[in-house]
């Protein structure tokens, strides 16, 4: 009896210690994990902070050695100057928004139909089509720009919004179709089948049943298209020559990048103006951005 009790007590102690030990190990592991992740975040977000910090400095203080982490003479005049004196930035904003929203409208419109077709009606060529869509991401956009440029010069479509919208659509459409198709795949077919049995036309099914459901997919594809168009430099730069037709990235590049040596703060302010709308979209629609990224890539 005594031996049994002792054995039991010893057992208990050892298991208790084992638990304590592994709990200790777990805490250490978790702390190290947190530390590593926070280090990474610091390293990764520091440049963004630097952008803000430089924007708030005065031009002459940017080149100070040693560089100030937080400006001793903060000045928000740069922002005021950018938006009131150099009115050109409003034109760039306007152009970028016009192009962006048009691209979203076209991509989501044509893309939804295409995504639905590819999802619900797999026909012989549909697999090939999907592969082609993936492969089209690979096509060197610069090279495609060359014949387009030649044609547009001859037709006289240079310096039009239409040209830029068209080209932006071409680079965003394939992936939008991919996202939307992936999204359609997740919507169960039962409701559509029921409607079909009840005699609804196929377009009717599309209109009444499917479209009300595709909100999230449309948002994901739309945001992706808008982001890509906002960011896009090379098509917009080649297809527009007049300053008043240029989109934000191309306009900023021409206006600022030549003379940055003395105006770093102004340049950063412009860059910030360019960045902030995207960050706002990103903050509010993060779920959709990530979902769009993953849905397209993971499923395929």
């Amino acid at each position: 009896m005594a031996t049994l009790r002792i054995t039991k007590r010893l057992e208990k102690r050892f298991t208790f210690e084992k638990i304590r030990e592994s709990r200790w190990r777990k805490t250490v592991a978790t702390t190290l994990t947190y530390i590593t992740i926070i280090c990474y975040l610091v390293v990764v977000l520091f440049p963004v902070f630097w952008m803000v910090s430089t924007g708030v400095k005065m031009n002459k203080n940017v080149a100070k050695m040693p560089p100030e982490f937080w400006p001793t003479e903060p000045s928000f005049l740069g922002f005021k100057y950018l938006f009131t004196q150099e009115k050109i930035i409003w034109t760039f904003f306007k152009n970028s928004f016009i192009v962006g929203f048009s691209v979203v409208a076209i991509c989501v419109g044509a893309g939804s139909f295409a995504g639905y077709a590819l999802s619900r009606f797999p026909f012989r060529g549909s697999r090939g089509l999907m592969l082609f869509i993936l492969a089209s991401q690979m096509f060197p956009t610069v090279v495609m720009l060359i014949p387009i440029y030649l044609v547009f010069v001859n037709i006289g479509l240079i310096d039009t919004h239409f040209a830029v919208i068209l080209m932006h659509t071409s680079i965003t459409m394939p992936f939008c179709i991919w996202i939307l198709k992936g999204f359609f795949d997740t919507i169960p077919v039962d409701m559509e089948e029921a409607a079909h049995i009840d005699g609804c036309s196929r377009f009717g099914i599309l209109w009444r049943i499917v479209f009300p459901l595709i909100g999230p997919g449309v948002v994901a594809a739309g945001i992706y298209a808008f982001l890509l168009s906002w960011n896009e430099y090379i098509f917009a730069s080649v297809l527009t020559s007049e300053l008043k037709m240029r989109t934000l990235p191309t306009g900023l590049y021409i206006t600022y990048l030549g003379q940055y040596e003395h105006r770093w703060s102004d340049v950063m302010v412009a860059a910030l103006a360019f960045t902030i709308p995207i960050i706002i979209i990103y903050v509010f629609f993060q779920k959709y951005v990530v979902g769009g990224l993953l849905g397209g890539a993971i499923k395929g």
Partner: protein
Amino acid sequence: MIAKLNVRQLNNTQFALLLLLPALIIISMIIVFPLIYSLGLSFTNKNLLRPSSKFIGLKNYKKLMHSETYWQILNNTVIISFFSVLGQTIVGMALALLLNTGIKGMKIFRGLALTCWAVPALAAGILWLLIFNAEYGILNHLLRVTGIIKDFIPWLTREIWAKIAIIITFIWRGTPFIMVMFLAALQTIPKDIIDSSKIDGAGPVRRFIHVTIPTIRHIIMIATLLQVIMIFQNFIIIHSITVGGPANGTKTFCIYVYELAFDAWKIGRATALGVTWLLMLLLFSIFYMRYVGGKEQKIY
């Protein structure tokens, strides 16, 4: 009399094609047509500074193969993309593994990390241009203050350092994207496999190599391939930081095609270069998908 198109009479395949029509029209106009036209142009000596052009067969390609610049550009592109993607994959995987341990705040970390991916390319380029500045850039300052270097590194004025600078920028920008994809992939691994390997006595390293990686092999392959493609296509970041210099040190295919086509107006040469680039990328993708992705390709 034009027969009215009765949608109800279309069979399923035809209906699908009808839905696909808008997307297909756009894609064929803007992707297929330029591709074919570019191929044709690459066999001519078209130069926009000359009034006419004629067919010269493979002469453009021969000239390219024999020019030293071509091989240097190939070298640059391969080095930059290889090391960038390598860095992104290693850091991204490490972070994904850490985040996958079920710690709290994973979504917040993910959201914060993705911010640097959301910063538009031009803004990022301007930003890193300032950071890499040899005289008053913050990077040199930090490195010197922490004692890692004694003299300032000439980031953008020496070929080798410029390459490293571009690689750093790409790693900074692309790691969050890859991390998010890997994290999502890790979360799809069924717990049973991990648990059973634990029971079988596999340590964490063994588990990683023999269980985790093979299960998400497909995703790793796609994610890295996408990154390589995106780096090949990337124009604005390299153009705003180093413009392909110094001494052609960071000139990738994309930048060289742009220069040939829109600075020197040598359309024939530019398209030939583009075609070789596309072929190379296609071949690489096919082999990469076969070899790294494993025999059972679930590409569609």
